[in-house]
C-alpha cells in the first residue's frame, strides 16, 4: 500500500517536472516595425529579397545586426522587441546614393517609418498595352543623381507577380544610348513564346545604374492579353 502511494507521487512528480521544465521561456518579440523605401513620397519598386536593411540595437553584449529584407513593392516589416534601434542602409546595396549615417528608430508597440533615399534614376509614367504578339511599352527614365551613368533599361515579363531581372520568363533590353533622360520612350517588346498563350502577364520596367547591382523598377503591372 505504501509502495503504491510512492509510485503515485513519483508519477505526479515526473509529470510536474516534465510540465514545469519550460526551457523555452523567453517571451517572443511582439512589436512590429514596418515601412517603405520612398523617394518623393513614392515607394520604390525593387527586386524581391534583393535589398536588405540592417537594424542594430546598441547597448547589448551580443551586437549583431537584424537583417530586414525589402519586398519588391518597396515595403518591409520586422517583428522585434521594443527598444531604440539604428537602421543602416548598406553601402552599394540598393539603387540609390550611399547614405552613411544611420536612422534612429524607436519602437514602442508598432511603428511605421518611411526611409527616404536618393535614387540615381527612377522610371516614371510606365504604360503597357498589348498589340498582337508584342507589347508596346512606354516609360520615362528620370535622373535624380546622374553622377553615375545609366547602363540600360529593361522590360521584364513573367507569369507571376514576382518579376524582375533575376526571375522572369522573358526580358527586353534597351541600351542607354537609346534613352534620353526625362523624355518618354516607347519600345515594341515581342512576347516570348512561353508567355504568348496566356491570358495575362506581369510586366515591369527597370533601370540599371552602372556599377550598382540592383535595379530600380516600376511597380508590377498585370496586363491581360
Amino acid at each position, binding site marked *: 500500500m505504501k509502495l503504491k502511494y510512492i509510485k503515485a507521487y513519483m508519477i505526479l512528480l515526473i509529470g510536474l517536472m516534465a510540465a514545469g521544465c519550460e526551457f523555452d521561456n523567453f517571451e517572443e518579440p511582439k512589436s512590429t516595425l514596418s515601412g517603405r523605401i520612398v523617394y518623393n513620397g513614392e515607394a520604390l519598386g525593387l527586386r524581391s529579397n534583393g535589398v536588405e536593411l540592417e537594424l542594430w540595437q546598441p547597448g547589448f553584449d551580443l551586437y549583431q545586426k537584424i537583417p530586414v529584407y525589402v519586398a519588391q513593392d518597396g515595403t518591409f516589416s520586422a517583428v522585434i522587441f521594443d527598444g531604440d534601434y539604428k537602421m543602416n542602409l548598406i*553601402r552599394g546595396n540598393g539603387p540609390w546614393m550611399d547614405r552613411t549615417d544611420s536612422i534612429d528608430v524607436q519602437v514602442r508597440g508598432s511603428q511605421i517609418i518611411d526611409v527616404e533615399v536618393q535614387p540615381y534614376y527612377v522610371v516614371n509614367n510606365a504604360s503597357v498595352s498589348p498589340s498582337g504578339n508584342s507589347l508596346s511599352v512606354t516609360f520615362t527614365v528620370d535622373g535624380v543623381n546622374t553622377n*553615375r*551613368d545609366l547602363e540600360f533599361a529593361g522590360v521584364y515579363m513573367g507569369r507571376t507577380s514576382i518579376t524582375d531581372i*533575376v*526571375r522572369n520568363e522573358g526580358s527586353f533590353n534597351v541600351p542607354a544610348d537609346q534613352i534620353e533622360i526625362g523624355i518618354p520612350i516607347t519600345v515594341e517588346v515581342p512576347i516570348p513564346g512561353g508567355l504568348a498563350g496566356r491570358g495575362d502577364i506581369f510586366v515591369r520596367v527597370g533601370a540599371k545604374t*552602372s*556599377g550598382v*547591382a540592383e535595379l530600380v523598377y516600376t511597380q508590377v503591372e498585370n496586363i491581360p492579353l
Partner: protein
Amino acid sequence: MKLFKRYMLGLALLTVISTSCDTDFLELEPPNILLDDQVWNDPKLVTGVLSNYYDRLPTHTTLTGGWADFAAYDEAMWSGYSGNDGLNNIFSYSFNRWQLWDYGLIRDINLAIDKLNTISELPEAQKAQFESELRFIRAYVYFEHVKRMGGVPLITEELIYDFNGDPTYLQNPRNTEAEVYDFVISEMQDILPTIGNTGSNTRANRFTALAVISRAALYAGSLAKYNGAMGSPITLPNNEVGIDPSRADSYYSTSLQASQTIINEGGYNLYNSNPDLGENFYEAIITKNGNPEVIWAQDYLLSADKRHGFTYDNVARSAREDNLGSSAITPGLNLVEDFQYLDGSSGELKTHEADGSDYIYYDEVNEIFEGKDARLYGTVIYPGSTFRGQEIFMQAGVMVWNGSSYDRIESDGIATEYEDGGVLVAAGGPHRSIQEVSNTGFYLRKYVDNAVGASTRGIRSEVWWVRFRLGEIYLNAAEAAYELGQPEAVDYINVLRERAGFGANSLSSLTMEDIMQERRVELAFEDHVVWDYKRWRVAHEKWSGNPDNPESMIYSLYPYRVVRPGDPRDGKYIFVKSVAPRFRAPRFFQMGNYYSQISQGVIDANPKIVRNPFH
C-alpha cells in the same frame, strides 16, 4: 603474528624512505606530453608539427572537406542522398559562403617560427629549412584568405596581451588586397633558396613555392585588370579590396616568370604513360607512383589508415561495391558540352538533325561522344564508357513509336525490363527521382578510385588530392603571356590540347574565351571554377540567377532506346536534353559574393576591421 606486524612496519618504513628520497619529485618529466625543447630539437618531431599544419591548410572543395560543394556550381549537381538536395536548390549564395578567418592557424605557425628561432639547437641549415617551410605554409594560408576575403591583417608575430585593460594595440586594421598578394609572393621568393625538400610532391619545395607564385600573381593580375574594367570597380576607400589596374602587368610578368621556371627547370612532365588518351588523363591525376606531373598533393595512405570516402560516395551506381552511397556528384551536360570535338568544332552534342526534323539515331549509346576531347573520358563517365573495365551502360527508358510520334516510357525503378524483353531503365540509370542514381546522365570519373574495394566503407580510397600540377602551370603561363601580349601564349595551351588528342598546334591564335574554356575542361573538379570566375569578374554573369540563362542551370542528357518493330531505326538510341529534373534553382551569384562577409564577431572584437562592400 607479531613477526608479521614487524615486517609490515618495516615494509611501510622502507616505502616511505624510498619515495621521499626522490628530491626531484616535483620536477619529473611528464611521460605523456612532449615539451617545447624536446619537440624543437628533434627533426622528426618538427616534421610531425609540420604535417599537422599541412593537414590544416584551408580548402574549399577537396576529397575530404567540402567535397559536396563540387555540386554547388555549374560543373555538377547533387544526385546522391536526397537529404542533401539543398545543393540543387541554392536560392542564392550566402555572403559568408567562402568566409575564412583562421587566425588560430596563423598564430600556431607564428609561434612555431618563434620557437624554432629561440629554443631549437638544430643545425642552422636544418633550422633554415624548417623555417622556410613554415613560412611557406603561412604565406599559403594568407593566399587562401585574400582570395576569399580581400585584404586581411598581416600578422607575422605572436600577439601578447599584457592585461592592462586596453587591447587596442593588438587590433590591427586590414592590409590592402595588393599588400597581402605582395606578401604571399615575396615570402615565396624569399624562401626559394632554403626550402629544400627537392623531389617531394607532398612537402613544399622550391617549385611548389614557384607554383604558388604562379597562381597567386595571376590572381592578383587579373583582379587588378578585370576589377578595373568593371562599370564600377569593387573597392573600399583604403583599398582593402581592389587593386590598382596599373599593377596588372607586373603581376602577370611575375606569374609568367614563375611558370616558365617550373616548366623549364622543374623536371616535371605532363603525364603521358598510357597510350589510351582518356585513361591517360584520368591517371595523370590519380596515379601516385612516379607521376611526373604532380607538384604538390595532399596524400592518403592505406597502411597508415589515412583514407577517405570520396569514392564510396561518388562511384557510378552500377559499379558500386557497397550497398549504400554512390553517385553523389554527377557532372552536368553543360560541362560535357564544353569539351570540344577533336576536329576543333564546338562540343555541343548532336541529338537532332540539323534542320530539327528528327532525332539522330545512334547504334550504340556511346557513339554520340565519339571524337571528343579525351579529357571528357578522363573527367566524366558518360553512357557506355567503361570504369574498372566494366561498361557503365545508361538508358533512361524507351521511346515507343505509336504510328505518328514517340511515347516516352520510363519506370519508377532502375534495372527494369520492358515488355519486349529488352532493357527499360538501365542499372546505371539515369533516373528522374531515385536518389543515388545519376540525375544528369553522367557520372564523375576524376578522383574516383578505380582500385578494387575503394568504394566500400570498409576499405575506402587513398587517392590523393592534387593541389598543384603542371597542367595548371601551363594554363597559368598561357594566360599571363596572353595578357602581356606575348605570342607564345598559344603554345602553352597547345601542349595540353595535344595530350588530349588534338593535333599539334591545334589553335593558331588565342582569345580570352579559349583560355576560360581550356581552364574549365582541364581543371574541372580541381577547385578552380569559383576562384577563376571571381577573379575574371564574370561570376555574376555566369550565375545570374535567371532560369533562362543556360550557364546558371544544370542540364541533363537522357538516352532512350527506340522501340519501332519492323523499322531500321528499331533498337537504336536517341537522346533528349532537358533541365535536370532534380535541379530546382538557378545558380545566383551576387555582387556581394565577390568578397565574403567578415563575421560580426570579428568586427566587434576589432573595430578597425572594415566590412566588405555590399555587406
